[in-house]
């Protein structure tokens, strides 16, 4: 254990501080759509140039090319947060596709896609889930049949965030219908402008359409746009899901949320008494504070393990389950502290934080379900982490088809 910042890191921190001071007035305006604005892309380019985004991506693919160093990453995050400056883009393309291509893509694919993705010029969506294939993702039915040098894709995807503003999709399709379900899937990447793709927004309980349904009718994709081999898509996707689960359980988000609740409880009052002075709410706050601290330290432990190329085992498997649940509980505390004000929504008078807490509370439930439900996570933890047996396959009934 050594959490001390040595001289090298203090120098690094000064450099980051210098950058944030210099750029205090350059906060990029967001576009308000699913695509980064010109401002945001310029900001992203500046961050990459200085090593504050795409830090460990090799330079030949448009990254900064630094050695992984968890402390430097942490210092960057700390200093940007302190200065209220946005960090680099965190899209599905950057957090999921880029690591997957780095691990499994061809040299040509890496050269073609990583750099424009990092710069926010190419926006990606993920085509995994289908209406009939959620937890049992490997049962997916969107099919790709061969036609000369192309695949012809037919089927439907669901829960596709940013589909309407994406340039490209990374998509799981069934190419080998006769193979066992895990061995018949391929991972294709193709343009969302390809004829035959229809995107329909999917309204959720939050009142917003955070997701879409995507329909494919005879969509023609060159065979060369496959990542890894035919039939290996399931294994490619698992490499990607690993990145997604880490992202969904991000403990820094919980830290930011906790800080906002602490402020809220100092500002909001009930019959003239500040919520922070109410022992029951204060007790809930301190309980969650301990959980946030535990998850933050847990994240530091995992980062250390990954920097040393060690397998942290079960410690990694619990992050998605615990991280999403914690975020949900934080939103719940904020709502309860606000009481009646906590249920105001849309453009109501007396609305707090733009209705953010209710929206988070509902959206987080979606995150607890999405990316591998809590129940699937518990299967993974018990089977892979604790070595417990899988559920036996139901015996096939005599004479059943």
């Amino acid at each position, binding site marked *: *254990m050594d959490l001390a910042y040595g001289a090298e890191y203090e120098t690094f921190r000064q450099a980051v501080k210098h950058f944030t001071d210099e750029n205090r007035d350059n906060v990029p305006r967001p576009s308000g759509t699913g695509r980064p604005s010109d401002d945001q892309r310029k900001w992203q380019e500046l961050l990459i140039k200085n090593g504050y985004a795409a830090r460990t991506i090799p330079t030949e693919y448009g990254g900064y090319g630094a050695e992984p160093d968890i402390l430097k990453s*942490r210092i960057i995050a700390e200093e940007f947060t302190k200065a209220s400056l946005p960090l680099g883009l965190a899209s599905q393309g950057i957090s999921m596709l880029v690591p997957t291509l780095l691990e499994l893509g061809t040299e040509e694919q890496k050269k073609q896609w990583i750099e424009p993705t990092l710069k926010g010029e190419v926006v990606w969506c993920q085509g995994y889930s289908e209406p009939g294939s959620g937890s049992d993702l490997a049962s997916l039915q969107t099919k790709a049949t061969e036609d000369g040098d192309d695949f012809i894709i037919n089927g439907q995807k669901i829960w596709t965030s940013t589909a309407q503003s994406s340039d490209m999709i990374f998509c799981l399709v069934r190419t080998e219908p006769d193979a066992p379900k895990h061995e018949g899937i391929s991972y294709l990447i193709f343009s969302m402008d390809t004829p035959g793709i229809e995107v329909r927004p999917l309204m959720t309980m939050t009142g917003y359409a955070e997701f879409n349904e995507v329909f494919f009718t005879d969509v023609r994709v060159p065979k060369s746009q496959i990542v890894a081999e035919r039939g290996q898509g399931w294994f490619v996707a698992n490499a990607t899901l690993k990145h997604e689960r880490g992202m969904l359980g991000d403990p820094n988000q919980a830290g930011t949320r906790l800080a906002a609740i602490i402020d809220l409880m100092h500002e909001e009052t009930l019959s003239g008494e500040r919520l922070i002075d109410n022992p029951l709410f*204060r*007790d809930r706050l301190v309980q969650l504070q301990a959980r946030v601290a535990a998850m933050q330290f847990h994240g530091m432990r995992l980062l250390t393990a990954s920097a040393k190329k060690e397998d942290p085992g079960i410690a990694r498997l*619990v992050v998605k389950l615990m991280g999403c649940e914690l975020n949900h509980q934080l939103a719940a505390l904020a709502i309860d502290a606000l009481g009646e004000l906590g249920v105001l929504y849309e453009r109501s008078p007396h609305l707090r934080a733009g209705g953010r807490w209710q929206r988070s509370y509902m959206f987080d439930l979606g995150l607890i379900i999405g990316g591998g439900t809590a129940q699937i996570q518990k*299967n993974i933890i018990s089977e892979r982490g*604790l070595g*417990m047996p899988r559920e036996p396959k139901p015996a096939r009934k005599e004479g059943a088809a």
Partner: protein
Amino acid sequence: MEFALSEEQRMLQDTVGRFLAEAAELDVVRKSAEAHEAFSRKIWTGFAELGVAGILVPEEHGGLGLGILEAALMSEMTGRHVAPIPFIGTAVMAPLALAKAGSEAQKASWLPRLASGEVVAGVAVTEVIGAREGAGVTSKGDVLTGSALFVIDGPGADIFIVADTSGSLFLIEAGAQGLERIDLTTIDLTRPVSELRFEGVAAERLPDSSPEIIQQVIDAGRTMIAADTLGAGQMMIEKAVEYAKERKQFNRVIGSFQAVKHLCAEMAAELEPCRSLVWYAGYAQDALPDEGSLMACHAKAHLSEIGRFVARTSTEVHGGMGFTDLVGLHYWFKRIGLDRQLLGGPERVREEAARLQGWAA
């Protein structure tokens, strides 16, 4: 920056864990508990021979001179093996009090004997945190009057470190005139506690004592208790998983039922981040003193909650067998139960965490 145990720390923990796995087998623990022993002299002697009774004692006084983090790693092992030994008072709280507040003569006289395991020290600080039954010790000069409850490592102690109500620490030998020790029986027979009654007892003041040092002693004690629960909880999870893989009902091992698997997954998911919290709390007391008290509170309170969840859930996974004396799972259940209340239950400790941050008067 590195958030991981060093090779030396891992080796030390493994060595002590292996020793306790053998020396504190369930049969041995059971015999010691059923005989209502103050502690197992045999295990304590073996433990001390590894040098770890002196884990916190400075090297010039014959100890290892290590930190609170290393001590927490030891405490995790004593919890894991429900070891009936006086670790938290004798090897952590008393040496810390003496090293920080004792005179040179007191240090020279007692620290080497604590480090060797020859002397056992009871620690009476409960009333600084919260008094029950009107307990509390007052001092007039160096003469003590009153009573102290839940004295850690009290039974079998040769000396006592006692905090009075005004922020001073005192050392008293067990045979002192006017001192009465009454042993209390808790659910946990592996670590009995005592009540002390003082009727004008002449004590030795630790000359540099202060409320801050008493707080540091309590912080260290809380971190040890959290680590004890971590170790005990980890063992309860392992036992539940092992049992669920063997026990068959409906022609299947029960561990293949999701209802059972998910209980095991929930326990592991809750306990695993606790390990990181305990490490940080220990490390903070060694290296980040501003955070030491708050992190000790968080570790103590959070482990109390997760410990309770793991203790009852593991017992349920064991079904009826978990409820029997024969299987002995209850030794861990009770250890976690005592840990929860010592040096402040979670509600009390969270209130203190709020005060430390200026959120409560």
